[in-house]
């Protein structure tokens, strides 16, 4: 099941390879079919998932069964290393409460991304090949439970992303693409070293061999005492935690490693922005929750405060930057930085509320930001500009568009009744109830105000009022005497067309539904998050009980 959901896009890619490149429609439909089937599989996994199992660590005795679900575990590579025993790499997939939410999100965003890619006209075949490769790598990252496998998927994302930004991007795409590539690779090479170090430090209790299994690594009793990352080597464990954290923080992206993100977003085509903000950023925080924190819990406890501070910086700095942007897409990009700050803050709180909020925020940010980027893409397709002050009074002429923008913008700023509110509320409840992050949370609240400021201000400038003199569109009097909007070089529907609605309406429904009744997603994660909190912060838990 999990193998299928991971490799389905690659299978679609192989089919596409056989289709002649002139058959653009077939290529698109094959990709869409793969994505839809992936979505169906995700729903089936969701239905079959038992939310009472904890995950994160193995059951007593080291068996992952009974803790993880949909496990697929095969020996992949077994190398004889002479005196060092043997190197065992497994093909090991499975889901728990952390990954199931991300699997659903990935399937959803991938499908929306395919729909959004319909407007790609240049080298369609190459585009969808890379897109499908990217989809596989993302999904693989979320379900891999072997560090080696995780690393392979993690790195596999980089190359397609480089080309997707670099070939189909905007004017400054070369710079943005290589910056993204170098930045992420810089983070992940450290991960490679930590991975090797962990391998030499951890013994699988079932086989007695060194292992790459993340499940075995998550239990501290499996570490060799005097190994390089064993409990005796506190110094190297700190170093490993920090470099691993930087590797994931680059992906989040956390201040001061965030500078690649605005560049990448501004240059990337709309569907790639959707994927980038909707799924890729989550890989950073997912990696922290799956690998960085549970493997080094004592270092995590020592650094919760610092992580919280960085979270707060992200929230406020991102919001201020967003406030200053003239380019709508750049504003949304900076708002992503700000919103991922909430995730960091929730993680730093290290209690059930905070962690649940963080994970739920990851899901909601995925859906909401996907919506925001699609909406930006809609107006960019028509007007060929994203400058906020080139618009004005759009609400009169594009009422449907304006309506959905309003929902998305309000969801993003955390209006009660929409999904963003619940996750942010949980994050703040968690952060306030934790001794470490209480004061950080007080400062971070400012972020909500700033968020409201930049979102409402852009909404007002673009949609309310009247057309400005230097606006990116003209007004014409239609045959019925009504004033109509007119874009240059745009022959499509003026307001949202069917494809755009097909992308946006499901997201709007999800945002509203999860804002009223969050349990379908939140219910999946509670057991796992509680267990994660136990693993991470036994002290905190003891105080609560």
């Amino acid at each position, binding site marked *: 099941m999990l193998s299928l959901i991971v490799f389905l896009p690659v299978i679609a890619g192989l089919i596409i390879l056989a289709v002649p490149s002139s058959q653009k429609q077939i290529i698109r439909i094959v990709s869409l079919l793969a994505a839809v089937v992936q979505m169906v599989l995700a729903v089936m996994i969701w239905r079959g998932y038992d939310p009472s199992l904890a995950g994160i660590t193995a059951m007593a005795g080291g068996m992952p069964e009974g803790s993880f679900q949909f496990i697929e575990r095969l020996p992949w*590579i*077994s*190398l*004889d*290393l*002479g*005196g*060092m025993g043997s*190197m065992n790499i497994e093909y090991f997939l499975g889901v728990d409460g952390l990954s199931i939410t991300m699997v659903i999100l990935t399937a959803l965003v991938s499908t929306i991304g395919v729909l959004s890619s319909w407007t790609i006209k240049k*080298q369609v075949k*190459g585009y969808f090949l890379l897109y499908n490769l990217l989809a596989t790598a993302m999904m693989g990252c979320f379900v891999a439970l072997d560090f080696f496998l995780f*690393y*392979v998927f993690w*790195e*596999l994302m*980089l*190359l397609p992303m*480089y*080309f997707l930004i*670099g*070939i189909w991007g905007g004017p400054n*795409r*070369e710079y943005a*693409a*290589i910056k993204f*590539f*170098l930045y992420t*690779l*810089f983070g992940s*090479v*450290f991960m*490679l*070293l930590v991975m*090797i*170090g962990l*391998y*030499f430090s951890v013994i699988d209790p079932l086989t007695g061999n060194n292992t790459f299994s993340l499940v075995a690594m998550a239990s501290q009793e499996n570490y060799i005492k005097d190994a*390089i990352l064993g409990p005796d*080597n506190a110094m*190297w464990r700190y170093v490993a935690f920090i470099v691993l954290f930087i590797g994931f923080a680059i992906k989040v992206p956390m201040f001061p490693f965030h500078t690649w993100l605005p560049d990448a977003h501004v240059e990337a085509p709309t569907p790639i922005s959707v994927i980038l903000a909707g799924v890729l950023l989550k890989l950073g925080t997912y990696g922290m929750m799956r690998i960085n924190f549970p493997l080094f819990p004592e270092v995590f406890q020592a650094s919760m405060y610092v992580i919280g501070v960085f979270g707060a910086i992200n929230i406020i700095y991102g919001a201020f930057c967003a406030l200053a942007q003239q380019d709508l897409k750049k504003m949304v990009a900076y708002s992503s930085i700000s919103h991922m700050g909430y995730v960091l803050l929730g993680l730093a709180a290290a209690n059930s509320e905070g962690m649940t909020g963080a994970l739920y925020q990851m899901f909601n940010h995925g859906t909401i930001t996907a919506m925001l980027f699609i909406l930006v893409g809609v107006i960019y397709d028509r007007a060929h500009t994203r400058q906020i002050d080139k618009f004005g009074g759009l609400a009169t002429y594009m009422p449907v568009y304006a309506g959905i923008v309003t929902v998305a913008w309000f969801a993003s700023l955390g209006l009660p009744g929409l999904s963003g509110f619940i996750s942010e509320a949980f994050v703040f409840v968690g952060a306030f109830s934790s001794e470490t992050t209480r004061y950080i949370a007080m400062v971070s609240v400012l972020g909500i105000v700033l968020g409201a400021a930049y979102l409402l201000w852009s909404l007002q400038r673009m949609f309310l009022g009247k057309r400005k003199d230097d606006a990116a569109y003209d007004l014409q009097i239609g045959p019925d005497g009504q004033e109509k909007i007119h874009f240059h070089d745009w022959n499509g529907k003026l307001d949202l067309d069917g494809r755009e609605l097909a992308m946006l309406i499901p997201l709007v429904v999800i945002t509203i539904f999860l804002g009223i009744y969050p349990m379908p997603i939140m219910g999946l994660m509670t057991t796992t998050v509680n267990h994660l909190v136990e693993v991470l912060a036994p002290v905190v838990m003891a105080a609560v009980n």
Partner: protein
Amino acid sequence: MFELPSGAEIQSIIAILKSGLGFFIPEIYLSILFMGLIILDLVLKGRKNAILGWTTLLGLGGSFYFIAQQHAMQARELFFGMYVLDEYAIFFKYFFVASGMFAVVATLADRKFETEVKSIGEYYALVVAMVIGMVMMAAASDLLMIFLAMELVSLTAYILSGYFKRDARSSEAALKYLVYGAVSSGLMLYGFSLIYGMTAETNILKISMALADHGYDPLVMILATLLIMAGFGYKIGAFPFHFWSPDVYEGAPTPITAYLSVASKAAGFALLLRFFYIAVPHGFSPYEDILGIDWLSLLVIMSVTSMIYGNVVAIWQKNVKRLLAYSSIAHAGYLLLGVIVMDEIGTQAVLFYLLSYFLMNYAAFYVVVLISNRTGSETLDDYRGLGSKMPLAGAALTVFLISLVGLPPTVGFIGKLMIFSALLSKGSLYIWLALIGVLTSVISLYYYMLIPLNMFLRESLEPNEKSLNPGFLAQLMMAVLMILTIWFGLFFEPLSEFARYSSSMFGLSLY
């Protein structure tokens, strides 16, 4: 004066030589092939390129049969300790014969040989001669034999790199190669003489015993290893003995460039590992020696400077062959990391890395040949827009370059993984080396990606949108190489088992 040996002594010498011959069959076979090619060249008339090329290819392929039979033989010394037969040597025999075959394949694909070269004549024979020389480098266990084998390789390489006689750059390459080669050979020979002066032995095993028994003057020892390093460093193309390589790589015919960058480098490493592991004593900690530096520290310095210098300077290159030349300096640095570890895992990692480097570097040069066949150029600017004109070549080259960077799921990633695992298996001792290794490989991403950047992200300078077809066989070859690069990146067990099996060296058990 020397005494004349008696008849019985001569008889026994002949007997020993005869008994060694049975274990020397691949080398004899290759020598016969070499002579056969020269005769064939004299006999044949007209367009000889294809016939000679295919004969060489098949002839070299035939030697696999004889090499494979050597697996059944026990590791032993031959010819009074001049030469050894062990799994380690057999590994390199396969390696060099396969390299020779690949050089021939690339030569057959290269159109420049048809236009530039009047007589292909002794070209293929020289390729075979170089294979023989390299095979002997990997198996030599005596200072004299080492020197002879290295000179055989060098001399043929000088001729081959200047094979485009009318091309000024090619001639320049050959001359530079010759001058640098002569100097470094001289230095190495001086180092050998110092070792001989200390031990009165030329066999590397006996040298190590003599050094262990009688001790040595550390100052002379460090001088000797430094001088010898000049010779080996020249062959592996590591900083600071690399100065020949960019010019030679750029000027030499591309198949020869590939051949030098893979096989000649591997031969240097074969020798380096055997010589330093067996002949020269070392403390088990690199900081133990009296002077504070010993050959291990020298290797560390060479490795670090090679990684940094090669990767950084490559950033500014405008010619693809030159870019790959600088990158090959960096790869010598990565390989040296495996040598520094000095145990089975390290040796295994080096051998695996060589295998992966063989695959990805040859493949990359092969695509460079195919592209220059169509465009007549090797500069980055002329790679603009090639991605849409030669999609398969573009995709394949990208995969090979990604593998050279060391990103999964390619064989180059596993090579780096092995090297870094070997370093980290020593605990925290070599973490800093691993750090430099990974950081410089991030730098390498930048310049390697310049090639796909020009191929895919930029439009061609000329609006000519005609697609270029490199031919069916070439397409097939590229596809196979691309699949192999990824396949061995995912299922590398056979390669690494082969590398482990081959890491046993004759005489190493002494330590």
